[in-house]
């Protein structure tokens, strides 16, 4: 009865020792530079740099195939350290943050159908482009929140995705996930944003959503020249020259507002 156990153990131990000996005598030593860079990476594997993960980006940097500074999640201190290791200067990139350009939650925006299919925006999109009456509206099923590696997107009880800027690193995963293409990456330094994506006429929007940009142009008049442009009936902020935060008080529908949120409750508290 003990023979099979002994044989299996013996084979396992033999293979373990064989592999260990071969690694010891024939293994290639790991590039110390790559190891140092990997240690400085955030380890989130968000893919914001365009590589498969932190390890792949670190390898590419160590081999001189990529430049540092592409990681959206890294703080500037570590980025500087990596640049120093590689002997190059790091290109300062403007820190970005994601915003969901829609304000139409269940209280303000209407739906033209009841959906009880797969709980995923991309699947819901297959059926007549989702159930929101506004074709630019957040479907509220949380595909972006699931895609976010940093848990920075919260689904409100009224089914609207909200990005918490203090948790968001600007990796852009949610931007690729959203089937409505209403998530944008914007400079962190900009104070106010237009939380609506529909360029349709104000009256048409008003029929389906109480919290859309109605195109009154009050903000454009209050801001300096070139800071806010109109795309149809939608105010668009020029992020190269962002308007002052006070302009937000002009907006009658509160679509133009700050992206600050109440800090997200930790996972234990919400008991997700």
């Amino acid at each position, binding site marked *: 009865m003990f023979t*099979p156990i002994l044989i*299996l153990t013996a084979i396992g131990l033999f293979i*373990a020792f064989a592999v260990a000996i071969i690694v010891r005598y024939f293994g290639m030593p790991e590039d110390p530079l790559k190891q140092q860079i990997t240690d400085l990476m955030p380890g989130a594997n968000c893919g914001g740099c365009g590589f498969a993960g932190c390890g792949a980006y670190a390898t590419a940097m160590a081999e001189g195939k990529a430049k540092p500074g592409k990681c959206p999640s890294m703080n500037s201190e570590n980025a500087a350290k990596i640049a120093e290791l590689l002997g190059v200067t790091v290109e300062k990139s403007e820190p970005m943050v994601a915003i969901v350009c829609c304000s139409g939650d269940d209280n303000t925006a209407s739906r033209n159908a009841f959906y009880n299919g797969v709980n995923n925006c991309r699947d819901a999109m297959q059926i007549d482009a989702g159930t929101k009456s506004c074709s630019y509206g957040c479907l509220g099923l949380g595909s972006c929140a699931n895609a976010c590696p940093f848990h920075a997107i919260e689904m409100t009880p009224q089914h609207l995705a909200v990005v918490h800027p203090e948790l968001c690193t600007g990796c852009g995963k949610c931007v690729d996930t959203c089937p409505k293409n209403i998530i944008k990456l914007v400079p962190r330094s900009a104070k106010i944003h237009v939380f609506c994506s529909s360029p349709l006429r104000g009256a048409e929007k008003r029929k389906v959503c109480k919290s859309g940009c109605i195109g009154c142009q009050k903000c454009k008049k209050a801001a300096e020249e070139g800071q806010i442009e109109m795309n149809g009936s939608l105010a668009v902020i020029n992020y190269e020259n962002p308007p002052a935060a006070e302009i937000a008080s002009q907006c009658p529908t509160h679509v133009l507002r700050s992206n600050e949120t109440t800090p997200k409750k930790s996972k234990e508290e919400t008991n997700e």
Partner: protein
Amino acid sequence: MGEIISLVVGAILVNNFVLSRILGICPFLGVSKKTSTALGMGGAVIFVMTLSGFVTSVINHLILIPYNIVYLQTIIFILVIAGLVQVVEILLQRFSPKLYHALGIYLPLITTNCAVLGSAIICTKENSSIITSVIFCFASAIGFALALLIFSSLREKLDLAKVPESFKGTPIALVTAGLLAMAFMGFAGLAG
């Protein structure tokens, strides 16, 4: 000689691992987007499958059958194949970096490929000798590489074809794989 030919033709065409036995579907769908990666994977599978066929049949004849523990074959073969692939990877990296880079990520991926384990278990089921097992495993791996190559060239053509929106990507790939498997059914009865 005739026996060996029928064994080889049988393993490559009639009982093709992917298209008839439905083994190793994961790499079949995963790395068949480009012909170049399909060739890399095919090469790696041929290499590992032949080697593992030899090692597992030696273990089968020298350890499992004498001690009457053939029922442990699955777990022992997994252990051996995983260890073997690790060793091969380390040695290749050291002595043949060129081949190592050509096989790339596909080499460690094969550790968990069910076609490799499947070929080893089929050999022990038929109780074939060590030489027959090696030939069978080699031919099966050729069949796997062939299926992968055909499928990847089909998928490259599919990229240029006008596919209905809802069939784009994996759905049309699965439909194509089904048609390819049906085409391979035409080989049934060839070479006894």
